[in-house]
């Protein structure tokens, strides 16, 4: 019986070698794909088991991980969830994450390559790894002013520092409380997510940089810039401004706001902007041509699918292959022209900064748990949107808008504000979107801001950019200037 016993021994050995082989297959060869499998919640749990770094605004943590006595070890907590929801996004076991929680995840978890040495040190000293702190560029006072200004209205406010591109305020309404999604009960978090996902106004998607709207008259800044850049126009160049403009090859006409006149058959470019004369800019657009307008809009940041702050920004659109009628409507920010509020803030900011557009950014510094700086964002030019001469001409024209035009509601005593209103028609029967974009002080701008209030906000059909959006922009500007 010894021969079969020996064979049996060989068989058992083969079986054990096969087991070692299959264990190696799982734990070595397959490990990578298993670890990255979407259904593998272990990675998420492991992150929860570590102290996720805070998100900071103005020296205060707006998102922190608080130790709790449950299997996850830490609870993500948002001190002013609704106020900062467009900035922080949410961090949830059931629904993953969004905004900075997503874009800066590697830093917050401490898994970033930049934190390699910190990690090694933690490993050697046996310290539990801690994520890095992400310090934002947000100015809490401006954020709060924007939030207060929007109130219960649906809309968005973006404020930039023109010289650097720092995002000073990023508010989207309706916001949401990320705390309800950060709960550790997956069923509760999932239910909350469903509720928010179906809620009116899409609170989970920040209007500031993930939603785009017809920019309406605020787009006239782009058309005016293109005109000035062409060299054929100055601020005082007369442009045709009929009461009604019949669109070529159609029976449709473009009129002016309230059916009014722009002050004659011809007005200066500056006056056309001041009164937000539709017929003047529509005919100007047809004269300049599609390519000129699109090229100018691109230099302001339109048609850029890769813009990220670091959250990806929805691409703002200027259409192509336009017939004259559509081109005329596009020149005044209607039809297929679409811009995110961040995009319109960039337009104002480029004009404020002497024509040079700075790349907007939201993350100032990343600090390891021991407070050493891991990375710091340096301001970077995005493009030279317009020449400095054009910029200063536009600035003067925008000052006119606030001083004696459609944007008087943005006037601030002792400070020259440059702005542009917009009242963008939406679908038939819906109140218009109210826009206002501005910067101040006009001679040494410290803040550029874009405000949109969807569907007229509290004023509904009576709304204009000047009535609804301009006061919010003023409040934000005042908050920045006061700080």
């Amino acid at each position, binding site marked *: *019986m*010894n*021969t*079969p*016993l*020996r064979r*049996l*021994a060989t068989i*058992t*050995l083969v*079986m*054990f070698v*096969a*087991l*070692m*082989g*299959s*264990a*190696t*297959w*799982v*734990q*070595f060869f*397959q*490990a*990578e794909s*298993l*670890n990255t*499998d979407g*259904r*593998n*919640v*272990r990675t998420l*749990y*492991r992150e929860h*088991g570590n102290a996720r770094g805070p998100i900071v605004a103005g020296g205060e943590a707006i998102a922190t991980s608080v130790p709790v*006595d*449950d*299997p996850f070890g830490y609870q993500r907590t948002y001190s002013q969830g609704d106020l900062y929801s467009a900035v922080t996004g949410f961090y949830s076991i059931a629904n993953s994450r969004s905004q900075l929680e997503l874009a800066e995840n590697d830093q917050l978890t401490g898994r970033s390559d930049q934190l390699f040495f910190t990690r090694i040190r933690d490993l050697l000293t046996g310290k539990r790894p801690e994520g890095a702190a992400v310090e934002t560029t947000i100015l809490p006072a401006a954020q709060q002013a924007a939030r207060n200004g929007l109130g219960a209205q649906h809309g968005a406010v973006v404020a930039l520092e023109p010289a650097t591109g720092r995002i000073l305020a990023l508010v989207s309404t309706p916001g949401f409380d990320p705390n309800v999604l950060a709960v550790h009960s997956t069923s509760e978090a999932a239910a909350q997510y469903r509720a928010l996902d179906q809620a009116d106004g899409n609170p989970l998607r920040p209007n500031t940089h993930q939603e785009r709207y017809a920019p309406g008259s605020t787009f006239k800044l782009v058309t005016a810039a293109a005109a000035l850049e062409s060299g054929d126009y100055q601020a005082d160049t007369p442009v045709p401004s009929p009461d009604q403009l019949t669109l070529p090859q159609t029976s449709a006409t473009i009129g002016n706001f309230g059916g009014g006149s722009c002050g004659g058959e011809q007005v200066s470019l500056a006056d056309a902007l001041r009164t937000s004369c539709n017929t003047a800019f529509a005919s100007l657009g047809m004269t300049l041509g599609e390519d000129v307008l699109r090229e100018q809009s691109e230099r302001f940041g339109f048609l850029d699918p890769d813009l990220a702050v670091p959250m990806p920004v929805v691409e703002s659109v200027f259409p192509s292959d336009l017939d004259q009628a559509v081109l005329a409507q596009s020149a005044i920010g209607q039809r297929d022209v679409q811009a995110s509020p961040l995009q319109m803030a960039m337009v104002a900011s480029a004009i404020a900064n002497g024509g040079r557009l700075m790349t907007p950014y939201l993350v100032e510094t990343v600090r390891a748990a021991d407070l050493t700086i891991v990375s710091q964002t340096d301001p970077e030019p995005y493009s030279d949107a317009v020449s400095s001469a054009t910029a200063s001409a536009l600035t003067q024209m925008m000052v006119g808008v606030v001083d004696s035009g459609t944007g008087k509601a943005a006037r601030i005593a002792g400070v020259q504000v440059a702005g542009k209103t917009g009242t963008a028609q939406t679908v038939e029967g819906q109140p218009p979107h109210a826009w206002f974009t501005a910067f101040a002080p006009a001679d040494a701008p410290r803040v550029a801001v874009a405000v949109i209030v969807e569907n007229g906000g509290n004023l509904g059909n009576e709304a204009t950019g000047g009535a609804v959006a301009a006061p919010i922009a003023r409040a934000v500007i005042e908050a920045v200037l006061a700080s």
Partner: protein
Amino acid sequence: MASVQPHRVRPGRGTELLLLVPALGIGIAGYVLAGLGATGAVPPHVIAYAAGTTVLAVAVHLVLRLRAPYADPVILPVVVALNGIGLAMIYRISIAYAARGRADANIADRQLAWTAISVALAVAVLWLLRDHRTLRRYTYTAMVAGLVLILLPLVPVLGQTINGARIWVRVGPVGMQPAEFGKIALAVFFAGYLVTHRDTLALAGKRVLALQLPRARDLGPILLVWAASLVVLVLQRDLGTSLLFFGLFVAVLYLATERTSWIVIGLVLFVGGAAVAAATFGHVGARFDVWLHALDDEIFRRDPGGSGQLVYGLFGMASGGLFGTGLGQGRPDLVPFAYSDFIVAALGEELGLTGLIAILLLYTILVSRGLRTAIGVRDGFGKLLAGGLSFVMAFQLFVVVGGVTRLIPLTGLTTPFLAYGGSSLVANWVIAALLLRISDEARRPVPTVRAVATPDIGVPVSAPGRSRPVGGGRSTGRTGTPAVGTPVVVGSAPVRTSTVTPPDGPERGPASDDSPTEHLDHASDTDERGETR
């Protein structure tokens, strides 16, 4: 073999004691590290734990000194180490469960209690069972006991269906899986039955192609066990146990008859049965789906019968990678049944591939020592029993670990010594005790024969120590031995005159079929006959 030197066989108890130090150390260190990793503090009762496990291990060691001094010195330390690793892992999981407020957070204490009971039973077996051949007298008792134990869960009231398998019996507060003990009973029955009937099974029957087919009436038992396995499979919905019984039977049958044809027949019957079962019964077919398409989202989310548990286990092992997360620092509590069926996944996660392979090597050592015992022991019954018990342990591990690592379809079985569960732990400690008992017999020197083996002496010298006359009254025949080292070709009649050490087993004397019961069945029933024919 150039010459026969009367060499001293070392009982090995000193080696055993020495090996027990690291074996206990692994378990205790694991326990401390699990506490440190999971809670950041040394377990408060670690001194009591260390003392307790040490006392248990040393108790077995002392009993071996008294009752089985020649027992294999490696088996006990390996078992102690495995049991210790299992306790550490279960303790670690209990911490995680306690943190989650689960009701079954007391598994560590329970397993510790079961360890004490298991060791006590192992000691009892070693103390009371002086000679493993005694068990042969209970061949048919074992058969009845085995069948009763296997079928016990089917009894209404007694049996309980847990997680879809009816393999539990509950009497008052105590639940057990009788199949674990049925395994031992059947191993005894197979060994006893087959050692008696090996000739008829091996030699009678037609030869078809290269296969020696057995006669139909000899086919009876294998068909019976095949049917019994199917009953378990169908009525209890327990794939693992039916596979285990069948594997055990085929292995022992092969050992007894040395006929490959039996393995082929067994495999054909099994594959046939499995194919029919997979096609007929939903839960068997589902297992195959899960095995082949575990990561498909549809299979993953299927409920019941989805691959969720298996895939969570794979996720765990993958997160452990090569070196593991460290004891107490992974998330084994995310895998359902991480403390029982999936303890291998938990160990793989926290100890890594390295740790898992180390554990598999411990099993390799254990099984190889068991099979070595089978080769070394002189009586056919002992060979079959030791071989069967060793194989069933190896096979059980293969089925469990193979299932968890997706080498083969997943079937519910416990990992010997590691997994939580009283029945399993007790049964495996009893198996270890039986192997120790048989190994004592296998390694015990036979001085009489050794003396004869030295030509210079020429006269059989009866040695003190073992008073039993070896080889009946034919010892005189040994004087006229051929030169040492010349293989003796034994003729058709089995003659026990060879003083030459058979090819496999230099430390053994010639055949000493000294069990009286052996002669009743087969005067010629020795392994040497088989070796030299």
